[in-house]
């Protein structure tokens, strides 16, 4: 049985058991974050660098890697947003707000159809957040996201953001591939007795 990602407030980190329109502790909603962050910043497909820390070659290489990710997982799109202009709020709040307000993935991918991932990096405050859409909540555990960020940490710490992002994406590719394979194996195992009993 997979451990479902806990429902946690992106702002105060309070864990809540039942879904609600606002955080039971800090009363956070997406509308509050709209007021905090204002207009959605300009962003590009796959990689957006507002900080200027990534070279053009880095961006091109990362786009290639994220395009490969998208080919492997056609339902999902992995986007990276690097900023240094986060005046208010935390990187968690910003990632949650950006994930819902920007259109990184498919426009129609809402609710359980959203299998997207967003890696938001604040280079000024040295913080990063990896967030997933509703569709991946069932399959990706919190530990998977932790591992991916842990792999990226050394690159981020050394200022080599391209290496860190690449490591994070590679970990997620490997993990998501393993999860899908395991799901398929489980499905095949469940179907086999039915087939065997149905055959004469």
């Amino acid at each position, binding site marked *: 049985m997979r451990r479902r990602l*806990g*429902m*946690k*407030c*992106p702002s105060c980190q309070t864990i809540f058991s039942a*879904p*609600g*329109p606002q*955080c039971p502790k800090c009363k956070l*909603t*997406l*509308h509050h974050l709209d007021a905090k962050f204002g207009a959605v910043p300009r962003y590009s497909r796959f990689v957006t660098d507002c900080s200027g820390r990534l070279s053009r070659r880095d961006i091109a290489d990362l786009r290639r890697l994220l395009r*490969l990710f998208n*080919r*492997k*997982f*056609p*339902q*999902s799109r992995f986007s990276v947003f690097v900023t240094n202009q986060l005046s208010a709020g*935390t*990187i*968690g709040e910003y*990632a*949650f707000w950006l*994930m*819902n307000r920007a259109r990184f*993935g498919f426009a129609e991918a*809402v*609710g*359980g*159809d*959203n299998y997207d991932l967003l890696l938001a990096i604040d280079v000024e*405050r*040295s*913080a*990063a*957040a*990896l*967030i*997933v*859409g*509703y*569709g*991946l*909540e*069932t*399959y990706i555990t*919190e530990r998977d*996201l*932790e591992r*991916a960020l*842990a792999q*990226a*940490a050394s690159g981020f*710490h050394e200022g080599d953001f391209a290496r860190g992002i690449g490591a994070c994406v590679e970990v997620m590719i490997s993990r*998501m*591939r393993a999860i*899908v*394979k395991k*799901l398929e194996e489980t499905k095949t195992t469940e179907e086999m007795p039915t087939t065997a009993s149905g055959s004469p």
Partner: protein
Amino acid sequence: MNLQRFPPPPPRPVRIVLFFSILILAAGPVAFTQTQESTHDTPSVMAQSEPAQAKPIPLGWKIAVVAMVAMGTGFVLAFSLRAWRAANLFDRQYRFPAVTVVAFRLGGNKSGGCMSTIEFGGPANKNF
């Protein structure tokens, strides 16, 4: 039946001449066509003065050509592998099963805020 209406057959020498004329006309083109065997050219004075055997290619040249071909093949293979890898030709696509039950929260219709965060300013300080 009146046999007087049909002309009498030509005499024998006329028939022989007719036969030979047809034979000559039919065999004429075959006789004038070129046969497969060509005439041999006489070697020129220049050709006669050249040495019989050509100078062999130096070993260094051969090695250089082989090395260049190997390098070219290597470059082509490297670029092809990169392109193939980018195109995901040798790997399959992975799809997650559809999710039916979604716990919408905090007003987000794409994500409910399931995430992990990290602070990397110090020595890789994690904050989960």
